């Protein structure tokens, strides 16, 4: 019994929410073995109606103080390209699909998604290619994401301010 978690962080990403909550998307997600879909919609104006049947549950909310729990419980995270959302999912070792918002101009967040995809840590797509990707992707090919090393920063800074020779 698997759970998929969709997050848009603090943004509005109506296209993604509309895409995943469309009836045929829900059917596809269910057919892939997920019996629960959680939509964190942020500032979006598209607000799907939550429901619960015997075989499938759709939860919808805007924000929580922390998404840690929902990420922890998820078997798949589908996220906007925000660095915070991506890194949180990757650090919890969750399979991650990043959906690029084509309506954002000069979207620098694309840089990070592309780089992490190159390194094999996530898949990325657009709203229109998401259904196809969900169908065809092999999550087992994703590589574990090594955490950043802030201790390298502290060692560097200690030298700079003179705490260390």
């Amino acid at each position: 019994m698997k759970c998929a978690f969709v997050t848009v962080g603090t943004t509005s990403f109506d296209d993604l929410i509309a895409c995943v909550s469309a009836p045929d998307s829900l059917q596809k997600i269910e057919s892939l073995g997920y019996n629960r879909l959680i939509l964190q919609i942020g500032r979006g104006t598209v607000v799907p109606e939550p429901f619960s049947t015997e075989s499938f549950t759709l939860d919808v909310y805007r924000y929580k103080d922390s998404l840690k729990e929902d990420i922890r419980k998820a078997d798949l995270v589908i996220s906007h390209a925000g660095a915070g959302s991506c890194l949180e999912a990757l650090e919890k070792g969750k399979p991650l699909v990043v959906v690029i918002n084509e309506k954002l101009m000069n979207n620098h967040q694309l840089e990070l998604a592309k780089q992490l995809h190159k390194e094999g840590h996530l898949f990325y797509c657009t709203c229109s290619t998401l259904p196809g990707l969900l169908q065809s992707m092999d999550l087992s090919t994703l590589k574990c994401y090594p955490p950043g090393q802030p201790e390298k920063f502290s060692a560097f800074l200690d030298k700079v301010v003179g705490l260390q020779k």
Partner: protein
Amino acid sequence: MLTQGTPSARGKFVFQNPSSESEQKNPEGVIHGGHTTEILRLLGSLSNAYSPRHYVIADTDEMSANKINSFELDRADRDPSNMYTKYYIHRIPRSREVRQSWPSTVFTTLHSMWLSFPLIHQVKPDLVLCNGPGTCVPICVSALLLGILGIKKVIIVYVESVCRVETLSLSGKILFHLSDYFIVQWPALKEKYPKSVYLGRIV
């Protein structure tokens, strides 16, 4: 370099927690995204010698204030000897909202400078650490001014966001020339900006 009973870092550190560069302006002024998260991760790795800590955030940024308070409380919890480390949160207006027109940006930046300089002058930090847009540039320029006026030499360290793989942010482009140390987190940027510091991914 620790002398007995005295913290070896003599004093005051200003940490810049500006908001992230959101593409979508929120009329309520809620700040988007993880630049605060990034800088708090970096601060988490620093020793207690880096105190007292002064945080500077945009005046509309409640989310960052909450994150900072949580971070400091958590830090105090985990290390009882830390309990009396003071920290301060200062608020100044953002110098530019995303997509704000350039002519009006001149005015809002000057306004932010007008408020940043007295703050920096009062605190006289040893170190300014920042990682993004918004309030960053006026604070760093103020810190530079302190040095130019012979009042105090402030070390300015800028850490470009982990989001920035191939290109610098606008603040990054400006502060690359003004900072003492400019840290990037991906090799492509180190190649483009050889004078930058590359330590690998640090958040």
